[in-house]
Every structure is written in C-alpha cells, then in structure tokens.
C-alpha cells in the first residue's frame, strides 16, 4: 500500500508537459477536476479520459504509471461502484436476495467510479512531470498575493519541500523500527484489530521522537545556511511564463468553458 503512493515520483524525461510552468500544471489539475464534477451524462467521461491519455503520451510517461496510481485505490473504487449500484433507488432492472439493482444505480456507479479514477490518474500526472521543488515554487508564486494579508505562503512552500524530502527517510526509519521490534518478538501481522493497533502505537511513538529530533537538527542546518524565513529569497531556476504556458492557459479556459456550456445548456 505504502509503495503505491505516487506523490513525489518524478519521471525524468524531456517533454512538452515537463517543461510547462508548474503554475500552469496546478491550474490545469484544478480545471480538470472541476470539469469532472460538471459532467452529468456518463458518456462525456470519454472526453477527460482521452485528454488524460493524450497528456500521458505527450509527457512520455509510460502506461504502467497510468495504472500505478489506480492500484492504491482499487478497493475504494470497488466499494464505490458496488455501493452506488446497490443503494440508489429507482427503476429496478435486476434483483436478488435483498438487493435491487436499478438503472439509475448503474449510471451513478459508473459516474462516481469514473470520476474518482480519472481524478487520481489526472492529478498523478503532475507529480510525474514536475519536481517537488517546482511544485512548491509554483504554489508559492501562485499564492504569493496571500502573503500580503499575512498568510505565510513562503513558509508553507518550504514545509511542502521538506515533507517531500523526508517522507522517504521516514519510511526507511519505519522499516528499521519494525525490524528492531520484530527482532525482539513483535508480531505486526498477527492478532486482532486491537492488537494490531497497539503494535502501530509502539511504532509511531519512536518514529515521532525521531522526527522531533531531526527537526531540531534540520533547523540548525537551515539556519547555518542563511535561512531566516523572513527576508527576500531568490531562485536558481526562477519561474517565467513562456509562449507554451500562455497557449496552455487558453486551452484550459476553453476546456472549462466547454464543460460549463454543456452543463448549462445541454
């Protein structure tokens, strides 16, 4: 399960999508998701599906990555599908035991499942095509207007970066802790739910302590390298819009407009 998390799995190839400004990509994900929620007729899900496949191809990200994001949520998708199908009232088309399958239920089930699956695969593309640093920079720049009203956007961007940096290290430590406790007889995969939860607590506590210790070390290292959190900073690769970025914005606006039009007038 843990290994299925796709966040921060940058796929390093040169492509049009990789070169786009991270702000465009963030806006793209936002519009893509909003458009998904505007769809009422299930047939229309073909459009975002085709768009996603085209974007994956343009980004030169292999098809296996397309499904990788879905693997982690396969259970969620199954649940959504089954429950939507069984618990939506309407015209019964089939029934067995205490369950009734309705035509509305089938439509709803397809709708919800497609929505979640497309949302995950589409959003995963941004983490395949942008480095965590680029994403953090993008977020920082996009929301820099909020800095003026006292929201610490710069600090948040640093937090995002550090989180990306330390998630793999925390997993390493977790494995180490599990090994150390297993060596002293801890059994993580046996027992009932309650016992398993107790096992997790004995892991979380030392993991938490390790993180606190690390944060004090890290704070010192950051300070030693001139980080103060308050003054102006520059970037090695500053974000600058290029023609492709403006074109993408126009395409995104058209995409959104089309879905709003369909929702309102059709």
């Amino acid at each position: 399960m843990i290994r299925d998390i796709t966040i921060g799995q940058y796929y390093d190839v040169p492509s049009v999508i990789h070169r786009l400004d991270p702000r465009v990509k963030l806006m793209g994900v936002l519009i893509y998701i909003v458009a998904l929620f505007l769809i009422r007729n299930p047939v229309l899900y073909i459009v975002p599906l085709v768009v996603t496949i085209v974007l994956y191809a343009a980004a030169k990200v292999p098809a296996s990555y397309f499904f990788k994001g879905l693997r982690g949520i396969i259970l969620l998708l199954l649940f959504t599908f089954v429950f939507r199908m069984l618990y939506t009232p309407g015209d019964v088309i089939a029934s067995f035991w205490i369950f009734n399958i309705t035509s509305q239920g089938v439509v709803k089930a397809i709708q919800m499942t497609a929505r979640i699956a497309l949302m995950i695969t589409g959003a995963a593309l941004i983490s395949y095509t942008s480095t965590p640093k680029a994403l953090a920079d993008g977020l920082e720049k996009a929301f820099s207007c909020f800095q003026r009203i006292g929201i610490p956007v710069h600090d948040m961007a640093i937090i995002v970066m550090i989180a990306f940096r330390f998630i793999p290290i925390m997993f390493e430590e977790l494995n180490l802790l599990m090994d150390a406790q297993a060596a002293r007889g801890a059994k993580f995969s046996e027992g009932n739910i309650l016992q398993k939860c107790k096992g997790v607590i004995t892991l979380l506590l030392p993991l938490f302590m390790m993180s606190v210790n690390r944060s004090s070390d890290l704070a010192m290292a950051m300070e030693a390298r001139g980080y103060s959190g308050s003054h102006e900073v520059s970037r090695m690769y500053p974000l600058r819009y290029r023609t492709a970025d403006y074109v993408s914005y126009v395409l995104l606006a058209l995409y959104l407009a089309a879905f709003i039009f369909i929702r309102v007038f059709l």
Partner: protein
Amino acid sequence: MIKIDNIVHKYTVWDDENTKNEKVVLDGISLDIPSSTFMAILGPNGSGKSTLAKHLNVLLLPDEGTVWIDGINTADVDKLWDIRSQVGMVFQNPDNQIIGTSVEEDVAFGPENKNMESSKIRTLVESCLKRVGLWQKRKESPTRLSGGQKQRLGTADALAGVPKCIVMDEPTAMLDPEARKEVIRLIHDLNKNEGITIVLITHHTDEVADADQIVLMKEGHIIGKGTPMEIFSNKELLRAAKMDIPPRVELGDKLREAGIPVPESILTEEKMKSEILRLYNETKGKGEATC
C-alpha cells in the same frame, strides 16, 4: 581567523526530581585558529567539542567570554549573516542537513536565501558540485546517494556560502571506512588547494594525523594542544582524554621496543611504509656484505 576568548557555555538540564540544574559544557575555553590551518578538535563524547563547533557559526552564543570571527564579535546581532557566510558548517548526520529534493537544489538553498541572482547561483552551484565531485549527480535525489556522497554534498552546501572556514562536526561518525577516507581526503584538498580553514571535530585519532594542529578536549576543558607529533607522543595525555593511540603510532612504538630504529616523527602510513622498506633494504645490504 577565529579567536575564542575564555568562553563558558551552560545548558539547563532537568534532573529526576524535576529540578532545574545547570551543566557547564564549556568551561573557559580559549583558542586561536589562524587562517588556512587544518585544526582538529579531538575528544570523547560529552567533552563539549560539538558545542564548541556551534559557537563558531553563531548557532549558540557563549554565556561568558567572546568568540571573534575575522574580527567580528559573534554576539553582534547585526553581523549574524556576515559571520554565517564566513563559516560553513557540516553536521554529523548527512540526512538531517540536506534540504533539497535534488542534489543541485540542495546546494542552491544557501545562495537562494542570500537572494543571489539566478545566473550567479547556477555558476556557483556548478563550481561547488565540481569541487566535491558530484556534478554528474546534480539531478539525482539525495536519498539515492551513498553516505560518503551525502557528506560530500554537505560539504558542497557549506562551500556554496563561499566561506573562509568550514567547521565539520563529526562528519565521518556515520560513515564506513572507505567513505570516511573519501571525506577526509576532500577536506584536506580544500584546505591545501584553496586555503580554506578547516576545523575538524572528531573522535577518530587516525583522521587527524595530517592536521596542522590538534586540540584535545575533555569535560569542557582543553587538556592539550599541539602538532600531531606532539600530541601522539604524549601517551599520558591521550589516555587522559580516553583517546586511542593511532595504530601507526603504536606500531612505531612496538618497532622501537623491538630495537628497530624508526623515528618518532612518523605518523602517516606512507612514510611508515617507506621507512620500514628503507631499514629492511639497509639490513639486507649489510647481511649480504657480511656473507
């Protein structure tokens, strides 16, 4: 370069009865570190050497006494960033000092904080990474580097501040022997070729044989100071500081005990090897002559 004048540093500790106590970690330390020297600070755990290191980068301020960095008092708040750019710091745990998610981003962190121009950052990052030999790996994630490479990256981070001095706080403590050699060789190169003052804090006696000066610390005091030869020939002092006698020095002693006249000044492996070879050839020559 650095002048430490009679500093005292105390930590507040809470004991079992939850009462506040003060623990004196540095007790009247005075030390001069001239420019371009390679100074090694040697001492057992808890001797205060890491605390001392943190005073050199203003991560800590002394409770009494003064630290002067290039003529600037570290207590001068306005000069904080000036001092921090004079003295770079490399810490013990490589994972806890790397901030960037790629090698080059990590080196750029310092210059970015200084609000440097983008093109200048790029040239600086390139030169730093080339000096530590990580330019080929600039796009890689730091998690994929080996321990030695991580510590070299830490050194590149320090170099990106264009420092006159680099303080290394037990940089080899978590490394395997090969990686340790790699890091020690790198800092010697920086010291010799670029004249960067190095303060190496360690408890491995075998890493300091090539240092210009060694300072021995114990329980917050400096108990000895001198060249490697002076320190290593004083066995009492080493024992008092609970430090190992480096194997090469011990070998020299044993050889002398056995009547083989190797000079006491030999501290490095290379010299020891050539001296033994020389002596061996000499005796062989004599042996043949008597035959």
